[in-house]
């Protein structure tokens, strides 16, 4: 399979990263706008790369781990761009785009050139279920990045020796709000995604399997992020502790995405 669109999207994301990194060093409104424009262009290219993969495997692009990882990166980029517009804040862009470049390059490097198995046709309900849940993971991934930046900024502020980069990254309050917005996106997409999954299963088997490890872990993820949202507004948790909790929550998401999907679940496995 040719990966032209994947390579193109890597190149455009890399260009966007260069611009975001540049504005961290030298603030410039136009370079900032160019960075956002390139990110949006990268998202468009990446969309076509996913489409290219879909045509190749004759199914939705996430039926294997590589396609799913690529979709995750695409949704992470989409969520970040949305938050960037919402909060008018570009200084985390360099971190997000650098991760995107590395992530997609890894996917492109390790993805097999052969179709591992012919995926069965499962219909739009299933497609929407998987896409929305992947979107939730991507949003939680973004909140993880934002929480890490929060913790670093908080530590620098407490050390009373701010470095040059400290002045460039967003204020703690902005990072907190961005992280919470990202979690809201994740929870909203997860609720709809999981509901569609149940609906799909009910139509298929006439019942819902609550005991599947993927279902259990997904519900656990839902609870821990809800807890984060609640605790992050309470005395004693507000601030760095909530950010630490949000960052740790993402390890459960990673566990669900990797170990559960690859080894523990029966019908949520990658092909």
């Amino acid at each position, binding site marked *: 399979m040719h990966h032209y669109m994947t390579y193109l999207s890597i190149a455009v994301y890399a260009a966007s990263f260069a611009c975001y990194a540049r504005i961290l060093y*030298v*603030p*410039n*409104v136009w370079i900032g706008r160019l960075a956002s424009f390139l990110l949006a262009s990268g998202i468009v290219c990446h969309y076509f790369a996913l489409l290219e993969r879909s045509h190749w495997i004759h199914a939705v692009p996430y039926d294997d781990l590589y396609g799913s990882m690529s979709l995750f990166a695409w949704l992470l980029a989409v969520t970040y761009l949305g938050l960037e517009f919402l909060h008018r804040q570009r200084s985390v862009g360099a971190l997000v785009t650098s991760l995107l470049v590395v992530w997609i390059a890894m996917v492109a490097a390790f993805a097999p050139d052969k179709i591992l198995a012919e995926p069965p046709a499962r219909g739009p309900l299933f497609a929407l279920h998987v896409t929305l849940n992947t979107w939730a993971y991507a949003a939680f991934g973004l909140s993880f990045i934002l929480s890490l930046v929060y913790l670093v*900024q908080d530590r620098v*502020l*407490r050390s*009373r*020796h*701010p470095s*040059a980069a*400290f*002045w460039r990254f*967003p*204020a*703690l*309050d*902005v990072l907190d709000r961005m992280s919470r917005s990202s979690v809201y996106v994740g929870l909203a997409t997860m609720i709809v995604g999981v509901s569609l999954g149940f609906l799909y299963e009910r139509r298929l088997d006439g019942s819902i399997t609550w005991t599947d490890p993927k279902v259990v872990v997904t519900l656990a993820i839902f609870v821990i992020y809800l807890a984060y949202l609640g605790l992050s*507004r*309470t*005395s*004693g*948790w*507000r*601030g*760095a*502790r909530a950010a630490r909790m949000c960052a740790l929550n993402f390890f459960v998401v990673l566990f669900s995405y990797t170990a559960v999907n690859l080894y523990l679940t029966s019908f949520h496995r990658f092909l």
Partner: protein
Amino acid sequence: MAATPSNPGLAPRAAHGRRVDIALIGCNHRTAPVEFRERIAFTAEQARHAATSLREQGILQEAVVVSTCNRSELYGVPVDSDIPATEAMEEFLTAFHRIPRAGLAGRFYHWAGRDAVQHLYRVAAGLDSMLLGEAEILGQLRTAYSHALDYGSTGPVLNRAFQGALEVGKRIRAETEVGARPMSVAFAGVKLAERVFGNLKGRNALIVGAGAVAEQVVDHLRNRGIGHLQVVNRSPDRAEELAKRFGGKAVPWQSLESVLSSPDVIVTSVGGSGPVLTRAMLESAIGARAGRPVFVVDLGVPRNVDSDAAGLYNLYLYNVDDLGEIVEQNRRAREAEIPRAEAIIAEHVAKFEVWREALAAGSIVDELRGHFHRHREDLLRERLAALPLASDEERQRITQITEDLVERLLVEPSERLRKTQAMRGHLGALDALRHLFGISEKGSAGNSGDSDK
């Protein structure tokens, strides 16, 4: 700022095909003590009067006076570029302010041409300021230029130079860190508070003690739209005065502990010994505000806030030494940005030079046109006098044909001369052209009369 020349009546020197130089004379905090700067400073009215007089006395054809607490400068375009105008400007300046010329050695600096433009751009960038990179000077330059535009003492050259300076100032502040980081303890405190809360608009502040630095902090907080402001001071009158001045509310000293739970930013600058705010007081305040973060700036010496309070969760405490260290760091960071700022200035000075040369290049077309038409008219007068039988219609036709011929001959050279980029560095060729066609250096084109058609 509009690029329209404010004084169309003034003919720029380029109309005579000569390079147009800017002359500058001034003094600043480096060359003169404050006593001298006070005497040489201009009010807005004096600046208008000086600019008008300089033009009326035939010293300058364009003039802008820049006067701030740290500098007084006269920028101008001399009427006659062959005479060093800065001497006449200095003479005017000392006479204007009735300052004896004896003992002025080294007080004034003089710059001309490229150096004057470079100086103006450095001033706009804040590189020539006492506080490196300060932003206020850009506003002051804008005001000085805007006043000069209003009373019509500028022309194309100073318009171009000052608009360039404002652009340079903006660009350097946007693209370098020369003016990016706080350089005063008060401002550093406010900027750090912004690192916690983002926008300070609508946040609450408490000022404990009404010292001079605390006043500066309040000023910065107010500029950033701080919401509710409370002032606590041992002397209630002083608290009342400060609260009134900044639109806040004075709180009795005894109520200090009870108001601690509402502010997001606390600034202390109380004299005397022993901490005013203890760890226990702040701990209970944070508890009462449901753990919302508090930023505390302790400007007191000895310290007003118990140093143990720094360990409290969601409390960020900075004392005067911490802020001083940040200011010093920032000063070094700003200095490190100077080469980048100078590179931007060099780029804009080069642009100005290209424009100035193009101005001179463009004017020669008009000179040539005038020169050719004068010869054409002389020739027609001679030859038509020898043709008494020619009708008026025939004479008019011949006149028209010769006019068309001159214009056609000038089409190509005009096009070439107007391509300013291509003409850069070819001013020697222009001089040769003048020499070849007998156009005098003074632009009188051999014959007397206006060079315009």
